[in-house]
């Protein structure tokens, strides 16, 4: 594939994803609403991701604190550890790690599920049954990821801070009340709110890309594998791009 055709494909694909997103916004508010399916997808995305996100976030909080502590102590800034860890966790580690874990778990799941539904004509069967498959399959999943990822981020932030406290307590003596006092003293509105807002975008991106890849899966099992793979890779890449933009916007306000 030449550079030119690669670039052409990129432009076409971007256009197709944009069309998919526009269709989402056009149809999301129009009845009939697939509320039952939406709740089921919220359960699949949210509840089923809790163990994975929780363990990952807890370990990340622990590791970040363990890694930062010696350097901070070296500079005589050991008392800044809770504040530094909390800002890092709430602003970056919580949202990005949660989104990446969900891109892997939820994104691949949606990509493969929709891909196999497409290949085995289940989406066509829905259409013939008088059900709008885009509403039933895509909109419910995109909405579920958009709303569940921020909830998971809040959960991950909390567990990550506990992990951070555990690390701080193992290496030095600090009570839980002192640790969290210092955490909340340093955390400000512009640390918390932008990170929650950007996690909505992370969730939307994961849902949109995964559904797009699955919904447009080419025939055959190879296509299903490619859809699942593309869902994870593109979602993960876009999470970093959105994060970069979010940092720039937040810094402009600060």
């Amino acid at each position, binding site marked *: 594939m030449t550079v030119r055709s690669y670039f052409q494909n990129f432009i076409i694909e971007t256009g197709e994803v944009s069309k998919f997103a526009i269709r989402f916004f056009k149809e999301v508010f129009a009845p009939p609403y697939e509320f039952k399916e939406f709740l089921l997808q919220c359960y699949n995305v949210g509840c089923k991701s809790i163990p994975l996100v929780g363990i990952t976030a807890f370990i990340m909080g622990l590791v970040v604190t363990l890694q930062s502590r010696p350097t901070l102590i070296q500079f005589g800034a050991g008392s800044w550890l809770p504040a530094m860890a909390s800002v890092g966790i709430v602003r970056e580690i919580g949202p990005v790690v949660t989104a990446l874990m969900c891109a892997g778990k939820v994104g691949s799941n949606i990509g493969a599920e929709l891909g*196999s539904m497409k290949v085995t004509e289940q989406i066509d069967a829905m*259409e013939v*049954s008088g059900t709008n498959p885009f509403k039933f399959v895509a909109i419910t999943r995109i909405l579920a990821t958009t709303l569940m990822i921020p909830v998971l981020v809040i959960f991950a932030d909390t567990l990550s801070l506990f992990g951070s406290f555990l690390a701080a307590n193992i290496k030095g003596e600090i009570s839980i009340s002192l640790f969290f006092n210092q955490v909340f003293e340093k955390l400000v509105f512009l640390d918390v709110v932008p990170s929650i807002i950007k996690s909505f975008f992370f969730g939307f991106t994961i849902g949109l890309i995964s559904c797009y890849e699955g919904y447009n899966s080419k025939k055959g099992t190879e296509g299903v594998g490619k859809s699942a793979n593309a869902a994870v890779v593109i979602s993960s890449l876009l999470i970093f791009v959105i994060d970069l933009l979010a940092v720039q916007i937040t810094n402009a306000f600060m």
Partner: protein
Amino acid sequence: MLLCSKMKTTKPDTEKSNSPVVEIIHLKKNFKDTKVLKDVSLILEKGETLVVLGKSGSGKSVLIKCIVGLLHPDSGEIKLFGKPITELNRKELDAAREKIGFLFQSNALYDSMTVRKNLEFPLRRTIKKEGRAQIDKRVKEALANVDLAHTIDMMPSELSGGMRKRIGLARCLMVNPEIMLYDEPTTGLDPITAEGISKLMVDMQKKYNSSSIIITHDMKCAQLTATQMMVLIDGLIYAQGTYEELAESKDKKIKSFFK
């Protein structure tokens, strides 16, 4: 076109009391540069079973997907119950589809749902109106029709190929279809199961008084089910007639289907 008998391929006599359930006039469909359907016209009357024979890639599946609105024709007209489907909006098309049962080649059972949920799916918008008890009754009746009442709470992955096909048929019957479209209903099944499915299709057609279009290259299935047959070669209707007429044909291409 080799015409073995007078089959209706043009507009029906206006004096006729029954309008055709499906009418296709000069249908053309291309995929990029590939001309899949070059010029297909047919009429399906109430109670008829039209079997469409053809090799793989001859455009058979594209034809029935166009009938049900899954694919849009490039030119030509498709009328369902006298109404051109290209002029229907989404709501009207869905209403027309409520009278159609479509058995997909791959059965298209929803993997994440039980057999019960699969059968309820076409009626999900009417569950509140009809009542849970009535829907349950219809599900059980549809499963009894295909002799698989015991599978009601099983997942599709727990069923054999033949059972999946029968469940697919039961799901189609849930809407009391006036038209049944079968896309290679016996493909991938052993001859005994395939014959069982064919006989079931005939029984269900009688029971529901429906009209059918069957896409197949299984001659046993065609023999058991067809009232009319059509041979599709390279996107064109090559021959039409009854099973017996086509079976007696001296034409090489037609004979090759009956070997």
